């Protein structure tokens, strides 16, 4: 059975901002799905919505089926039981996501105790084991968050996420605040743990290259929607949606001197979620927009084996010229 | 700053800008219901104090030919009864508002002026001067202000000036701290660097750049300080440290206590002055908090 099946998920904040506008995703156990997009595209909101962690007053619609059960219609007691035990989150910026006045071991053991996994002594032992699993000495359980480096704190977050043997781990920008060497270590660690334990992984990042490297499939989000989805490598190397192309060329590619000297980007900012453009939300920034794009919304459509994209050019007789260099304006 | 930017009509531009920001401030202030209630109460109290010579007249405070018998209960003639000399308590409360509000206002202004001068200079001149000044501020901050004020009022002659001075020189440190923080924030902005590069001296920077930027904060602080000054004035008067020759709310309460109104249960003598003090203090507090949250929504007052 599908581990996670998200159908038509919508999120509207109290101020009227539509952060997520109809997202469909699915994930099998043991697979890794990447979600990419600029900041403000709704990817972190999506992560919080999966466990109903959004502030009171936020309207959430659609279905989030975790092992076949809809998280959005569960009773609160059941939601709390699913949290961490069914699906856990590695938050971005572990600096602030750990409680500064509690010892790390206690913070890791807290969900184990809460979900009745073990008596206190065993939970404590388990916390030590988890720390060793992520490459930290078990003795660090007695330390406080401020005594660790950024990379070590992120390892603690990962250890904590694994504490209750969840079926699904959501990693929200797990490596953003880290330097490149540490970033690579953390990514390897996540990959290794996921493959060892047959977990489902959702990894959220603005860095397409990182996701292409780590994940099986990749979904690109723009203005609260998935605009492109497909096998990670293909989406990264040969995006069909102009936004996907812009995103993949925004980072210099190793071994491609041309891209290093002329990194490509996208002019302008993501749209204001309280005041989205008409038609295709991307059309004001789109280098290949047609007149109809300003009027007609573009749904996701089949675009080859296992691929979908939401662009007027996709599925049309002639695909637009590929190759990021020609059709994406460079940022200044 | 405006003056530098538009040499043609600097004055008019500056005035226009000030008018605009005042209008913006008012629009935002109007949305705070508690602040509006406080403001309305203040307007009423101010009117009462200003019109007191017409409504009750200074004769109300005379002891010799008081209109009623001592300690009469409320009646149609005396809606709030009479005091120990047979004077109308209502008249006394109205008349007393003049001294209570005046002393509260002046003491708050004195306190805020000291605090602003200390804060701006401590923020502008760094180094030993600022360190010493802030140590003094911290010392005053921890000091029990009322004890200090009582000590001051005890050793000086009984007069309104003494009360104003005693309250003013003991209550400034909060303002100094806030103003200094704001000064440091303002001085880290790039245009101060520019003004310095253009040869702006200390006085120019403090008076033309820092002061206009800390003024809103000073306004909020003054409003809050009036509230505590009114309370402090009442307290000093109640302890017998006020000017015995004038009528004030705190003095009325002291009179009432001395006349045995407490044990006799003469509530009408005690209740009105206290309510007046509390209402004025509350009104200024509400206004001050509203101003504060308009200026700095993150201060946490209105959230």
């Amino acid at each position, binding site marked *: 059975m599908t581990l996670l099946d998200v159908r038509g998920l919508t999120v509207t904040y109290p101020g009227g901002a539509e952060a997520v506008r109809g997202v469909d995703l699915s994930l099998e156990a043991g697979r890794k799905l990447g979600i990419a997009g600029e900041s403000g595209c709704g990817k972190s909101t999506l992560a919080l919505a999966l466990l109903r962690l959004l502030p009171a007053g936020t309207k959430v619609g659609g279905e989030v089926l975790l092992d076949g059960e809809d998280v959005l219609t569960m009773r609160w007691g059941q939601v709390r*039981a699913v949290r961490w035990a069914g699906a856990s989150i590695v938050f971005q910026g572990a600096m*602030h*996501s750990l*409680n500064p*006045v509690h010892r790390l071991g206690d913070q890791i053991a807290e969900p184990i105790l809460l979900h009745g996994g073990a008596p206190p002594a065993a939970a404590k032992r388990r916390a030590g084991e988890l720390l060793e699993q992520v490459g930290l000495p078990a003795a660090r359980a007695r330390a406080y968050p401020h005594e660790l480096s950024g990379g070590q704190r992120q390892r603690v977050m990962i250890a904590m996420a694994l504490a209750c043997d969840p079926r699904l781990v959501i990693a929200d920008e797990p490596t953003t605040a880290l330097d490149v060497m540490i970033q690579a270590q953390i990514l390897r660690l996540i990959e290794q743990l996921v493959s060892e334990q047959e977990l489902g992984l959702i990894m959220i990042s603005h860095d397409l290259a990182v996701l292409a490297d780590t994940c099986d499939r990749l979904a690109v989000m723009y203005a609260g929607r998935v605009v492109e989805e497909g096998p990670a490598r293909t989406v990264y190397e040969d995006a069909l949606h102009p936004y996907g192309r812009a995103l993949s060329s925004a980072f210099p590619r190793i071994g491609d001197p041309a891209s290093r000297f002329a990194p490509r980007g996208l002019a302008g900012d993501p749209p204001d979620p309280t005041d989205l453009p008409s038609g295709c939300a991307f059309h004001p920034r789109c280098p290949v927009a047609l007149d109809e794009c300003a009027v007609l919304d573009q749904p996701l459509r089949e675009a080859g084996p296992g691929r979908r994209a939401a662009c007027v050019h996709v599925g049309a007789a002639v695909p637009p010229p590929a190759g990021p260099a020609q059709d994406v304006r460079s940022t200044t | 700053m405006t003056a530098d930017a538009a040499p043609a009509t600097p004055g008019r531009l500056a005035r226009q800008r000030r008018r605009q920001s005042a209008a913006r401030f008012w629009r935002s202030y109007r949305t705070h219901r508690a602040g509006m209630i406080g403001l309305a109460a203040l307007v009423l109290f101010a009117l009462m104090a200003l019109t007191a010579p017409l409504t009750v007249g200074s004769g109300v405070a005379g002891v010799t030919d008081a209109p009623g018998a001592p300690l009469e209960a409320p009646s149609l003639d005396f809606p709030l009864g009479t005091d120990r000399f047979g004077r109308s308590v209502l008249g006394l409360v109205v008349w007393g508002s003049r001294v209570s509000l005046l002393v509260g206002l002046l003491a708050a202004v004195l306190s805020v002026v000291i605090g602003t001068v200390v804060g701006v200079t401590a923020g502008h001149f760094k180094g030993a001067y600022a360190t010493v000044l802030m140590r003094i501020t911290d010392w005053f901050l921890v000091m029990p202000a009322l004890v200090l004020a009582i000590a001051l009022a005890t050793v000086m002659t009984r007069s309104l000036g003494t009360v104003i001075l005693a309250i003013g020189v003991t*209550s400034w440190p909060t303002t100094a*701290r806030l103003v200094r923080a704001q000064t440091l924030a303002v001085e880290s902005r790039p245009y101060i660097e520019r003004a310095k590069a253009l040869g702006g001296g200390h006085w120019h920077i403090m008076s033309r750049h820092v002061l206009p930027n800390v003024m809103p904060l000073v306004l909020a602080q003054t409003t809050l300080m009036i509230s505590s000054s009114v*309370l402090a004035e009442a307290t000093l008067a109640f302890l017998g440290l006020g000017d015995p020759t004038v009528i004030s709310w705190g003095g009325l*309460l002291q009179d009432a206590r001395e006349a045995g109104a407490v044990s006799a249960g003469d509530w009408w003598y005690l209740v009105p002055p206290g309510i007046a003090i509390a209402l004025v203090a*509350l009104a200024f507090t509400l206004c001050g908090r509203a101003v504060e949250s308009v200026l700095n929504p993150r201060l946490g007052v209105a959230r």
Partner: protein
Amino acid sequence: MVSDAVTAPVARARRPRTGTAYPRYVAGKAGGAAVSLLAVLVTGFFLFRLIPGDPVKTMTGGRPVSAAQLAEYRREFGLDLPMWEQFTDYCRKALTGDLGTSYQFRAPVIDKITEALPNTLLLTGTAFVLYTALGMFLGTRSAWRHGKLGDKLNTGLALTLYSVPSFWLGLLMIIVFAVGLGPIPGLFPTGGMESGGKEGFAYVLDVAHHLVLPVITLVAVEYGQTLLVTRSALLDEMGSDYLTTARAKGLRDDLVRRRHAVPNALLPTVTLVFVNLGRTVAGVILVETVFSWPGLGGLFYQALSVPDLPLVQGLFLFFASAVIVMNTLADLLYPLLDPRVGR
């Protein structure tokens, strides 16, 4: 001074920076406290000597006094000595606990203080525990449901009581609950600390009976400050990411609050509670005066109505030093409560 409560956490959050520096931090704080105490001593000296010009004149306050008596007083208080000698003399005596002789009671000031101190500690301690607990409890609830009706009522009541003069509230309490008003009988004594002639448990009950009204008055005027401080400290924590983590772990809302949010908000609150002790001293003086409580506050009132300058000065020194010492203790306590600041 509501702004004290709301903004002071920013001003006060001075923390030592590194892990092994606690002894140095203690030394620094103790040094600072010593300087502050010295400043109190100097202020006490000049306040009561320079401003009035001649303390003896102030002391005798217009009563007919013969020149011989004046000279006698001068010698007694050492006013015939040069200023510098007076000062060193005063410091030496103050440091050895000799605060002079009360003009009014003809007894050493220090004896009057030690006599009244336990009574004040009883009243203040009881009220302090109650208003801190009440303020923190209501402040936490208020912040957790901020913007709701309960929060508005809570903050509104706190602000109102905060604006009420403590002595007036005390007088009303006496009229209503001690003298009795209309149908309400007088339930409590009008003042003092005991009715006399009781021993053992009956004495304890009697003191407790006398304690009720002053404590209620003090709690009513002081808890608002703690409430506002706690509320704003907790509101500052509310947006924190670690609370989302705690929620994501599946913790119940009240556990998120109790176990994660409150401990973090407590730290600035604790400091502020101690900084505000200065205000509490004012409250104590007035409440003791109104209820004729035989403590330091009542003594202060008696001293300043004479005025009994040695006693006023001695009590000034005592109150100021006590507040400084309590604040220093709070500063020393802070790093022990906050693990971010090493020991």
